[in-house]
């Protein structure tokens, strides 16, 4: 089943085309890695697809009314903003806002979703801690749990592993892959090509605001594309642990 369908999506900022005629669809159970050099338009594509910024063309999510959209797609921005020193549990509960009217108290259903989200991100022990006092890795997990509590079939995450140590990078990507296997769809932007290649079922490679390649990791990440789009010489090998990918040096 198609959860997100983007057609001819374009975004212009001050007469500059940031995105040009992007078309793709994401179905149930897919874990899509969104790759591309800095400025390729990864964040802009996700925000436009969510309807957070003005755009041309269509996105099935952006055209929903805000309440329905909030129950269809959850968004994890890269900024990891936590403005106030709230507890982890309360912060995760914010994910239930689309299901609560103003001033309404959480119901059983809301608590169950929060508990499940905390458990999924292994945050039970931190439940009553103040979110702003946690380490960067813990905060990233809390914010993912917040998105999980929103209980949407689709999750979009912008650079969710940026700034995390290797263990947390791997466990976080495993979480996203697991969510996809469990029936949700995930779109994750990333700079670590190897990490994305190992955990995602599909990669979309953006370059200069257009899709350069879209398909399974081993088809998208080729030595030639690395040279052409990223300007690096890369090492690439299929191992029994999955594909291993390592950029080696900048091509002069």
């Amino acid at each position, binding site marked *: 089943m198609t959860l997100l369908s983007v057609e001819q999506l374009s975004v212009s900022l001050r007469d500059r085309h940031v995105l040009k005629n992007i078309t793709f669809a994401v179905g149930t159970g897919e874990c899509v890695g969104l790759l591309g050099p800095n400025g390729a338009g990864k964040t802009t594509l996700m925000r436009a697809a969510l309807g957070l910024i003005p755009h041309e063309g269509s996105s099935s999510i952006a055209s929903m009314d*805000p309440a329905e959209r909030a129950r269809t797609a959850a968004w994890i921005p890269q900024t990891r903003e936590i*403005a106030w020193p709230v507890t982890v549990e309360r912060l995760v509960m*914010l*994910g239930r806002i*689309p299901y*609560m009217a103003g001033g309404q108290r959480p119901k059983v259903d809301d608590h169950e979703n929060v508990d499940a989200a905390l458990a999924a991100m292994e945050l039970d022990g931190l439940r009553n801690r103040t979110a702003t006092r946690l380490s960067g890795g813990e905060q990233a997990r809390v914010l993912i749990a*917040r998105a999980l509590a*929103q209980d949407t079939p689709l999750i979009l995450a912008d650079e969710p592993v940026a700034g995390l140590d290797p263990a947390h990078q791997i466990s976080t990507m495993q979480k996203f892959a697991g969510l996809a296997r469990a029936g949700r769809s995930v779109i994750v932007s990333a700079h670590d090509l190897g990490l994305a290649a190992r955990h995602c079922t599909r990669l979309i490679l953006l370059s200069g605001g257009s899709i350069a390649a879209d398909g399974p990791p081993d088809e998208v990440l080729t030595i030639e594309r690395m040279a052409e789009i990223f300007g690096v010489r890369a090492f690439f090998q299929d191992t029994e642990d999955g594909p291993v990918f390592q950029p080696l040096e900048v091509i002069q």
Partner: protein
Amino acid sequence: MERLAIGMIAVALALFLAALTIGPAAIGPGESLRALIAGDAGPLTLVMREIRLPRAILAVMVGASLGLAGAAMQGYLRNPLAEPGLIGISGTAALGAVISIQTGLAASVALGLPAMALVGALVGVALVVALAGSRGSSLTMILAGIAISALAAALTSLVLNLSPNPFAANEIVFWMMGSIADRSMTHVWIALPFMALGWMILATLGRGLDALTLGEDAAGAMGIDLARLRLKLIVGTASVVGAATSVAGAIGFVGLVVPHILRPFVDAQPSRLLWASAMGGAIMVLAADIAVRLILPDRDLKLGVVTALVGAPLFLHLIYKTRRQLA
């Protein structure tokens, strides 16, 4: 949460009774309350019903408005330094009120005074929100506040100096420091419509402000209409601050001190901080107005002096704490 609400209501009630029984005319508490409720043609009933009752009611209304506005502004800008007085909204509201009085609008049009103060406050709050941007950086906000306050104070001074009335020129003190001494029920009725409107608007912001804890993008993706939220914040804040300033002058720091003290008690949740700060503001202004009467009963000490004495050191403390963010 309920315990906090009950506790604050109890404190507010006790202070309200104290405000009714403390005053420059020494009258026993029992005697004064009897005169208030039973009532006769004597001067005591006049004092209770026409001076002390409106004063206590105004303390509650003005305090609740300023506390609520502070909590709402802070929630929206995600900045604990956002306060109607400090960022110039009270100043522009005072300018609106002064223009309304000097042009005769206040006397000729019903609600002309709070309406003009509201217009002034709208200009102030819209300027701050526009200048400080979506996420209110402390530095931008404080600098914008300084500029807006200075301009508003200068224009207020100018309008008062242009007045043919010899008393007008000295009234800048009232408009800058605020007072609810010797007000009457008229002032309660003047302020109430706009305040009630603002309270209702601001009370609906809780959900959106909670979502904003995660930033504008995350809130937008959770179905919060940010443009609508901003409009409601601007109109609601302008209504309550405008109405409060039109009858009591600019009373600073209430919207800073109250949310800061109460934030830990509501687990920093912006929605719960709204109602808590409204009650806390009422408590603070009631207490400050009692202090004004106890410290210098016959000197007409301005209310804003007391709130600034409490609030300014806290403001400095907050700047110290957030100075890395400021740089």
